[in-house]
């Protein structure tokens, strides 16, 4: 009888938690949409930014660019490191624990510290100036722990039986990793990538100190540019363009939704293959 009560309690708790989460979520989205949609005009998407139209198109282009570049740097690095730690290093190797510990710690450092580091190292010391490149590398360092940890956990979750089966059939380690283990771990890894994308897109502090805040489409990787988040921050800073700031948030939401759907489709495809 007691078991039945516990069961019911747990079931109610689960539903309640879900209701809370999704209630808050939909409220939040409604809040952004109601405040932002009235301000979405074609002029907001003009190719050139000026103080009248406060166009977000340059920021949009910059954001997509930053996401792709940062992922291009961080995902291979993080994935390969995870592969090494899980597949090649001997289990219980202290190196593994050390990397894991520092990776988790790094994910808690406030983004502004990364921004400062990026400014002092990439912008000043390496002489890159306020540039997309400096911003990209700073962001890559920021999401590396996230990708590394989720990739590691996903790889670890693949049962050893899969690997043993492959070895038994004569496959080398490399082939096993790429053909058997990775596809099985793909959904988890992509979950990490999605979280990382969310983090990049929502980032402001780290970027204002490294990529700068210029509101035009950057001509090169060494030019400065602002992402949608920075654009939002800039617009709302002096209380003059709050409506447009929310409009930018709406565009951001659509962008993130788009990227997420793409990744999910990708995960499905890899998982099946």
């Amino acid at each position: 009888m007691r078991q039945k009560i516990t069961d019911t309690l747990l079931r109610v708790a689960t539903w309640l938690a879900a209701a809370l989460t999704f209630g808050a979520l939909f409220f939040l989205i409604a809040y952004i949409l109601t405040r932002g949609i009235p301000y979405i005009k074609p002029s907001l998407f003009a190719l050139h930014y000026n103080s009248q139209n406060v166009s977000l198109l340059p920021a949009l282009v910059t954001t997509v660019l930053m996401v792709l570049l940062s992922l291009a740097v961080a995902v291979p690095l993080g994935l390969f490191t995870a592969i090494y730690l899980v597949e090649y290093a001997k289990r219980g190797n202290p190196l593994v624990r050390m990397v894991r510990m520092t990776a988790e710690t790094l994910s808690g450092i406030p983004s502004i510290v990364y921004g400062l580091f990026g400014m002092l190292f990439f912008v000043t010391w390496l002489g890159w100036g306020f540039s997309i490149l400096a911003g990209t590398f700073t962001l890559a360092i920021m999401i590396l722990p996230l990708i590394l940890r989720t990739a590691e956990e996903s790889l670890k979750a693949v049962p050893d039986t899969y690997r043993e089966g492959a070895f038994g059939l004569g496959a080398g380690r490399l082939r096993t990793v790429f053909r058997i283990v990775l596809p099985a771990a793909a959904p988890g890894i992509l979950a990490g990538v999605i979280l990382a994308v969310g983090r990049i897109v929502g980032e402001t502090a780290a970027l204002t100190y490294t990529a700068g805040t210029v509101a035009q489409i950057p001509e090169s990787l060494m030019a400065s540019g602002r992402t949608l988040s920075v654009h939002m921050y800039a617009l709302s800073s002096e209380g003059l363009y709050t409506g447009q700031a929310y409009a930018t948030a709406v565009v951001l939401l659509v962008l993130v939704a788009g990227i997420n759907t793409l990744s999910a489709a990708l995960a499905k495809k890899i998982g099946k293959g």
Partner: protein
Amino acid sequence: MKQTITLLLAALMLLMAVTGCTQGGAQDAGKNITVVSREDGSGTRGAFIELFGVEAKGEDGSKKDMTTKEALIVNKTDVMLTNIAGDPNAIGYVSMGSLNNTVKALSIDGAAATAANVQNGSYPIARPFIIATRDDVSELAQDFIRFILSKEGQAVVGGSYTAVDENAPAYEGVKPEGKISVAGSSSVTPIMEKLKEAYLTLNPKAAIEIQMSDSTAGMTAAMEGTCDIGMASRALKESELAQLTGTAIALDGIAVIVHPGNPVVDMTGEQVRSIFTGETTTWEGLQ
């Protein structure tokens, strides 16, 4: 099916509960005053505490900011505005150029908070926007500054802020080619963008890049040569004056703001001071 309905109902209840509690009611005189201030290094705050005497100066040159420790600290103008607009018992301060109709600006010692009153001096609560350069500044930068201080430039400034020079001469410049970067205070950035656009119509050959961060970052960049012109919304520090020359380009009034439903319309400087130092804590305690 039953479970889906339960889920939807729960979400609905949550929504109603939260929406219902959002709007603040009328101001309650017996309630505590919510003092809202800007962050410690803000140019706006620095000017405010000095002009209202909230900053105590010691004989040995020491300075102490006596703002009450209970004051809410916000770091952006729009957060300040949102706080005041949402709390009937709140009081704060904001740059006059950012005033909107979600808040009410008080008159101080009888003078209303308008740009005109800042101009004629009857509203003395104002601080200058300053641009700073090193001595080896480029031709284009010099020309741009010439423009800002000219009649046309000051006309642009006068639109939202207060011009520093009523009788500035008309702009006569060489309009050189080139590229310069301007960096610094987020308070000055909006007006700088307007000035840049006005200048570019006269000199399309120039390229001006504006980086927004804050006063100190702007001054540092100017000193290191990372940018040509630095912007600040506060007076320059001694260490900055050693390497830079500062010029005031606009005057920006600071308005003391309260919730629109607040019956108070006028305050003396002394009343403001006693509220912000925590001496007066309730609205009815105001004498």
